[in-house]
């Protein structure tokens, strides 16, 4: 069967195409529209998926949307009614939002694609998350936990999945927590309180948490209390999901924690307020870990399963993931490359294939590279037009390793675009990991971001344990950069650019089979420096999505402090005059 999965309308929309039970294409709309976290209907992504497979919409057997709009409308309307009359400001906005387009998504999809409405199906949001986590993972049977802000009603689910020998698959959600009791919304409210953008700044809270101590943990526990059945409930006195949709925290929250940080205020960790914000971040992180580990542990005891598949936006919290793996009793933890809403496009398509239409299970290739391929000849042409030296190199890996060892920063474009928020070696900026000055240079000249945010390392699987304290099953968790683990103390000074203030790193453990060229580059770099580890950060500038095409990589290269741009076998070196201009601008 040919099934198109779609996610969209809230944040980070995407499309994915499954043919014969196996994904053939998946891409986030933002990578094509170049609007970060693009939430619009993913027409560009759909067109690309169909073009890639040389299909027309008529060839599709089904199109699956990642959530049920009527159920979502039910939740929104019920919330408004329960909040009456305080919800009077948000009601018109919410209704315009839902009634304008979102409620009629089946008709919208049918009309946009020119297909019959009967071909369009909707499945529940957390079923999509569960499918994205379990059906992709190389495991036959696993416990499943999904957690995010909110889907239709569910905010967190616990269940199991099985792929049987007769080819059938099953995803059984045993229980769920419902809005407004949400781990994701709790963390988002803290994100907003700390002055970061919700659905984008959660990484920053995690990074900031390492600079603080959980001195506010007892206060945090007032916000989120455990229930007798092992779940939790938010104390709604501290939240305002109806009146303050963008922030979600109430005046009582402010009374408890003090004045919030304004988005334009810099975080000065030397100041009293800066340290208070770091401590609050640390406390929220500690509580989130405590809760999610408890839920995962209870599920393990109940099911006795060795594997856990984790989905939903909360699964992007690498620190919590590491704690789950160490403390919840599982041997392996699977987090897909796109555990958030974008990944639901693929999850929805696979769910429809395996469960809605009962197709036999097929092994899904264990990599995240489902997007467009770069055209390296375009780089040769553009560089030549601009009079910038470009070369086709037969010893490219060795040349790039030399450059990295000489502290050059490399823009690396190779193969199909990653699906998900992490750059996993196909659209990466690479640099030597040894020196803290490199981290500062990247922050200053390239990423233009807060200094408290760490950079991630990539290491070949065979050397990972030498440098990083991976728990049992940690290499699997780190396959898609989903876990934050301690750097071994004896290596922290030699890995200063990728070691966070608390001695940890969000490492990518690379198997040669998944990305042989990057693996070869790591080995070549290791031969020169004795450390086969590179700093690997996403190929984008602040406020922009990760690059897709070679032209986008080139324009990024021209605008920041990257020294070398590599696409396939083509290498472009930045002339001194352009480098001087960029440094002048930065100054």
């Amino acid at each position: 069967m040919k099934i198109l999965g779609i996610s969209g309308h809230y944040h980070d929309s995407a499309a994915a195409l499954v043919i014969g039970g196996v994904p053939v294409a998946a891409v986030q709309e933002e990578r094509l529209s170049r609007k970060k976290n693009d939430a619009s209907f993913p027409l560009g992504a759909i067109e690309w998926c169909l073009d890639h497979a040389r299909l027309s919409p008529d060839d599709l057997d089904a199109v699956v949307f990642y959530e049920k709009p009527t159920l979502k409308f039910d939740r929104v309307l019920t919330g408004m009614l329960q909040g009456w009359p305080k919800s009077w400001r948000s009601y018109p906005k919410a209704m315009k939002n839902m009634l304008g387009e979102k409620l009629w998504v089946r008709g919208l999809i049918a009309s946009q694609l020119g297909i019959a409405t009967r071909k369009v199906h909707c499945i529940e949001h957390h079923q999509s998350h569960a499918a994205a986590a379990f059906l992709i993972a190389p495991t036959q049977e696993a416990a499943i936990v999904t957690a995010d802000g909110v889907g239709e009603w569910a905010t967190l689910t616990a269940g199991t999945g099985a792929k049987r020998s007769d080819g059938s698959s099953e995803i059984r959600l045993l229980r769920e927590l419902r809005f407004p009791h949400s781990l994701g919304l709790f963390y988002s409210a803290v994100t907003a309180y700390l002055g970061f953008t919700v659905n984008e700044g959660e990484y920053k809270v995690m990074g900031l948490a390492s600079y603080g101590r959980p001195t506010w943990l007892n206060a945090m526990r007032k916000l989120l209390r455990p229930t007798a059945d092992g779940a939790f409930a938010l104390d709604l006195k501290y939240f305002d999901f109806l009146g303050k949709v963008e922030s979600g925290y109430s005046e009582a929250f402010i009374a408890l924690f003090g004045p919030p940080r304004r988005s334009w205020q810099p975080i000065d960790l030397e100041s009293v307020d800066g340290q208070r914000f770091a401590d609050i971040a640390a406390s929220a992180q500690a509580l989130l870990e405590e809760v999610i580990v408890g839920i995962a542990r209870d599920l393990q005891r109940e099911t006795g399963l060795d594997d856990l598949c984790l989905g939903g936006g909360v699964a992007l919290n690498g620190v919590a993931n590491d704690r789950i793996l160490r403390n919840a009793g599982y041997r392996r933890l699977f987090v897909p490359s796109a555990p958030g809403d974008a990944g639901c496009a693929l999850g929805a398509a696979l769910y429809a294939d395996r469960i809605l239409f009962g197709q036999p299970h097929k092994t899904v290739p264990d990599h995240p590279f489902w997007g467009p391929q770069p055209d390296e000849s375009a780089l040769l042409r553009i560089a030549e037009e601009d009079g910038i030296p470009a070369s086709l190199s037969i010893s490219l890996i060795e040349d790039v390793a030399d450059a990295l060892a000489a502290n050059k920063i490399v823009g690396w474009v190779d193969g199909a675009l990653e699906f998900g928020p992490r750059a996993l070696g196909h659209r990466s900026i690479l640099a030597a990991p040894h020196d803290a000055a490199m981290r500062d240079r990247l922050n200053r000249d390239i990423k233009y971001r807060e200094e408290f945010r760490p950079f991630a390392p990539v290491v070949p699987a065979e050397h990972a344990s030498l440098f990083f304290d991976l728990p049992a099953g940690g290499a699997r968790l780190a396959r898609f950069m989903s876990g934050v683990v301690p750097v071994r103390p004896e290596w922290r000074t030699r890995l200063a650019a990728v070691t966070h203030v608390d001695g940890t790193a969000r490492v990518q453990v690379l198997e040669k089979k998944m990305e042989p060229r990057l693996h070869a580059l790591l080995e070549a770099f290791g031969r020169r420096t004795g450390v086969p580890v590179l700093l690997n950060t996403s190929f984008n500038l602040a406020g922009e999505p990760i690059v897709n095409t070679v032209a986008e990589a080139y324009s990024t290269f021209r605008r920041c402090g990257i020294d070398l741009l590599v696409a396939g076998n083509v290498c472009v070196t930045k002339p001194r005059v352009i480098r001087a201009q960029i440094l002048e601008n930065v100054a």
Partner: protein
Amino acid sequence: MGAQSLQDDAPRSPAGGAGGAGHLGDLFGMILWPVHRFIWADPRRRARKLLEFAAVEAAGGRDLVRAAELTGDPELRARYLVHARDEARHADMFQARGRALRTQVAGEGKEGLADWMAPGERGIDGLDLRVEKDADLLAFLHLSESAAARDFARYARVVGDDAATRILFQRILHDEDEHKRYTHAQLRRVAPQRSRRFLWWARMRRLWKAYLRFATALAGVMAGAILTLQYFLLLPPFAWLAKRNRGRERPGWDEPGEGGAR
């Protein structure tokens, strides 16, 4: 440099540039003069507007980068990248000044109805860069830069004794002038016989987009009013039922499945 001298320095439209639309803009500017004074006199509102401008300039810079990535013309690519760098710098300057003002005055400054009358730059105003021709985009950019230059010159004259903000506008105006010049020169290069026609076409599109913005805003206000009426007239009995139902909810796990609130 005082307000008068800034007026003297205000960029002129290049020949065949903003032309008639420029005169229309001047007329509107004169009519709206008291509104501009009202908006820019208050430091809180001023800070918020500057931070808004920062966001718009940053977005405009990203649009220009996109234009550079999509054009097949190497000269335009280089120009767009330089222009994008300027916009990013302007964004930083607006942001720094906005933040500085924010630290001097308490409070956020409420958004007012008059805000839309102080627009600042609109960048490419939602054009789909993937389908625009180079000449269309250049004409659009030229008019956009001209309008922004007029607006910024006007704001610089009404910021009162805030010399730092005035100097900021003056510095940005200098760049806007250069942007107007290069977009016009490039337009004449890529469409030597038809540059005027492209400019008039762009002018019509800008008018159409202004109408769409106005119509959308008006429709939004009308829909908001109707929904608010509905909220207070129709919803109370359902709200009572929903609240009564909420009282029966118990915290903790629930059975999965399609149900609403328990």
